[in-house]
């Protein structure tokens, strides 16, 4: 089943003929067109070097396309000035395979940190952090350091931190890569729950089981091109 065409009004993320070429000549993305609607849950699959990470970097404006346009909620990311990039990033939450928690801060402090450094008042921090920890099921681990947590708990903490600004989009770059299969499933269940609350989710993954089991929209990249974009798809083309 292929994806239906969407209008600019419906697309939360739109890539139009996007190419990314690095200075050494490597083409990371090659004429990519992609529309992601609000509320979508998308698996981004493909072998290493296919362009998944590059695409993610485009979305969080860590990189600018060599050609083509990337739109976020109708806004051309290339036209976002450097001084405004930080505001854009508050609309996008990101979690990584290696969690990237601050080792000297507790779970509560790690989540609160994301609010402190964006100027949130103490009252808001006190209000939001417990709610986020509750959402990810870490109320009892709030005072623990990352070193005292399991991999799954660390990833939950990272997810809570990624959600501090109520982002429209949550990008998960191999969120289960460092986790055992059971824990990996728990994290995916949490991501599904977050998606059910309205957050658009883009999950880059090599985990064939999860992708095939869930039968969501799959966008497959190979050598910088989208080779498949299917709803209800398995990891591999059937």
């Amino acid at each position, binding site marked *: 089943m292929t994806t239906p065409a969407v209008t600019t009004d419906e697309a939360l993320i739109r890539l139009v003929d996007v190419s990314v070429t690095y200075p050494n000549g490597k083409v990371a993305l090659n004429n990519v067109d992609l529309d992601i609607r609000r509320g979508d849950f998308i698996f981004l699959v493909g072998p290493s070097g296919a362009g998944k990470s590059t695409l993610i970097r485009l979305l*969080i404006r860590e990189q600018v396309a060599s050609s083509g346009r990337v739109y976020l909620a109708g806004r051309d990311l290339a036209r976002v000035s450097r001084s405004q990039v*930080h*505001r854009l*990033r*508050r609309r996008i939450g990101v979690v990584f395979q290696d969690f*990237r928690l601050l080792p000297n801060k507790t779970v509560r402090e790690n989540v609160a940190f994301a609010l402190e*450094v964006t100027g949130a008042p103490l009252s808001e921090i006190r209000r939001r952090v417990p709610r986020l920890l509750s959402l990810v099921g870490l109320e009892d681990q709030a005072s623990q350091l990352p070193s005292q947590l399991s991999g799954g708990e660390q990833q939950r903490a990272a997810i809570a931190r990624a959600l501090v600004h109520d982002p429209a989009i949550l990008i998960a770059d191999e969120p289960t890569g460092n986790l055992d299969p059971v824990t990996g499933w728990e994290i995916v269940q949490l991501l599904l729950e977050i998606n059910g609350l309205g957050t658009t989710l883009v999950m880059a993954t090599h985990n064939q089981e999860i992708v095939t089991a869930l039968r969501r929209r799959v966008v497959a990249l190979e050598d910088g091109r989208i080779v498949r974009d299917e709803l209800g798809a398995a990891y591999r083309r059937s």
Partner: protein
Amino acid sequence: MGFLRFLRFALVRAGQGFWRNRMMSLAATATVILMLVLLSGLVIVLGGLNSGLAYIESKVGVTARLVDDLTTDQVDALVTDVEQIPGVASVTYVSPEEAMHRLEEAYAQRGQTLDTGGADITLYASIEVDLTDPAMGDSVAAALSERPEIERITTRQEQYDKLIGVTNIIRLAGIAAMVLVGLTVVFMIVNTIRIAVFSRSREIEIMRLVGASDAFIRWPFIVEGMLCGLLGAVVTVLLVALIWGPVQPLLIEIFQMPTAVGAQFYTFVAALILTVGLVVGMLGSWISVRAHLGAGA
């Protein structure tokens, strides 16, 4: 309220960074102290020299000893003629009695009494010529040397010129030393903040990801550099306050003239030290932040 929150954030993070990196921070602070001690020494010495110069300037003129037994009319005529010489601001006749009175006063100021041993001493009469411009001393002295009423001429021009020369040398050498030391201090702070940035690279990465503004990322490091400068300045101000008491008599002893280096001057020096400390700290950290966090974080 947003600004206060930001300020508090920057100060807390700067303090944490200073403490976390305390060996480097203290080393940078020590170089700030060194520079500011040199600066304050230079400013104090130059201040003393300048006030000495002002004193000499007020005294610079020509003193001409008169031949004995001049009549009042001759003295009046001489004074009138000398007042017409170009470069002369005013002429004052000092009688032998007035000269003796001045000598007794000078002794009294030092807590001593003039003791002539019973001898009847008569000092010479003189005229004191104030100049419109210290540079005119030689030409006025040359004009006076032609007068028969004048026996001997003395000027303080030479002393003034010597002191100007010394002052200029000290000023130039001081500025050169300050520049060298200042560059060293800035380099130390640049390095200290560079280490601070690297040691917090993970936090910076997270801050960028979660949408912290450039100001929230950069300013804690800039404030951290300012803390090094401010701490160094405060220590220096205290050191200067300790040595302030002995300084003035020492300057008088060295330069053999009144050197007004009073409380108001100390306030000026303290303000200068604090300002330079803060500016140097801010400059070093700003350079480091630009270099290692980029023009836009």
